């Protein structure tokens, strides 16, 4: 399937595992997994990210904010999204977990079509997936600008 081949190149390990896990499931089970991701979006401790450091992902229909801490040896991705927007939370959570521990180059190498490779296109409208692309591109831009 083209949705696999386009993104299989150079996809870092954790993201490749997440993608393979999604693709191994039926469409309804993929949604269940997205829901589990939404429930596991790490809570950002109060004060961990300064208020003015958050960047809003305007492609998303809900208020979603991204911040990449680039001060340490490896970038750390933070994201917040409201409880009443579980789909968006799920997308943010996939990126937070999938990019965890990766170095700068690995984050920058993630293909822009990763969101389209998860097999969610039938279940979640294309527009919602664009929100996830908006998150990924912002993360990559923040990482690129910091170096």
């Amino acid at each position, binding site marked *: 399937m083209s949705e696999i081949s386009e993104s299989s190149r150079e996809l870092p390990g954790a993201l490749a595992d997440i993608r393979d896990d999604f693709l191994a499931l039926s469409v309804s089970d993929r*949604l*269940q997994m*997205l*829901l589990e991701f*939404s429930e596991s979006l790490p809570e950002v401790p109060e004060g961990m990210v300064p208020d003015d450091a958050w960047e809003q992902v*305007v*492609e*998303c*229909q*809900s*208020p979603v904010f991204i911040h990449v801490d680039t001060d340490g040896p490896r970038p750390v991705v933070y994201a917040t999204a409201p*409880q*009443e*927007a*579980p*789909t*968006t939370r*799920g997308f943010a959570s996939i990126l937070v977990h999938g990019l965890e521990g990766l170095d700068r180059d690995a984050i920058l190498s993630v293909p822009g079509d990763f969101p389209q490779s998860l097999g969610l296109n*039938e*279940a*979640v*409208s294309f*527009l*919602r997936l*664009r*929100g996830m692309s*908006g998150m990924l591109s912002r993360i990559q831009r923040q990482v690129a600008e910091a170096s």
Partner: protein
Amino acid sequence: MPVAADLSAELQQYAHPERLVSTQWLAENLNTPGVVVVESDEDILLYDTGHIPGSVKIDWHTELNDPVVRDYLTGEQFAELMSKKGISRDDTVVFYGDRSNWWATYALWVFSLFGHSDVRIVNGGRDKWIAEGRELTKEVPAPAPTDYPVIERDDSTLRAFKEDVLEHLGKPLVDVRSPEEYSGERTHMPAYPEEGALRGGHIPTAASVPWSKAANDDGTFKSLDELQKIYRDYHGITGDVPVIAYCRIGERSSHTWFVLRHLMGIEDVRNYDGSWTEWGSAVRVPIVQGSEPGEVPARW
């Protein structure tokens, strides 16, 4: 035997109070035979995070639309969906959802295209139910299939196509999008993804009445008196002449359609579901930019 309407005093002001139920009525009627509760949300996962006990989910994107052609289900497909959701033709279907019931009213409107007669909205929707601390469950019901008849969809009464709107120019049109979408500064909702219209602006002569004018902060509908002031007194929508409402893809205008048709009792109101994503990309249809409604062009 139809299920009795919610007789709460606050609903009796509306033209068709039987189209609304309060959260309290719903809480008391969750187990009433013949009542099916349907949740319809913008966020496809919201139902799975917790829903009103016994309710079934209907997804606007994957279940009400044809997957290929930009259109709604056929009669056969709708009958199949109803069977799957455990809905019989004479059931009372009570809709609720997120975002002040945008998708709940949209689903109700689609059901109405198939002539499902007893359809109602929970005033205040999902948010009000939750704000009141009422029960939610993650348990998904497994309804017994029903024998729903195949009904041909009626697109002539409640639905408007682009050609109908062109014919209608000069009669009341309600654009329910944000002021920025109306003026043409943007072609999509603020903070929403760009949703593919090539041109910005509005249909000539359309009045700008954002859907939210009809909703209170808690997601309930404004009082009839307030609605009359906005639509009838200020915008001259009296109901003597047919009305068409539109937005971007037909969801916010379903909310306004519900208000005009069922709360104010205007007989001839249609929803143009093609809305701006069609009009703003169509070749050689007239468009007006800016905050004024504009004139019907002499020709186009």
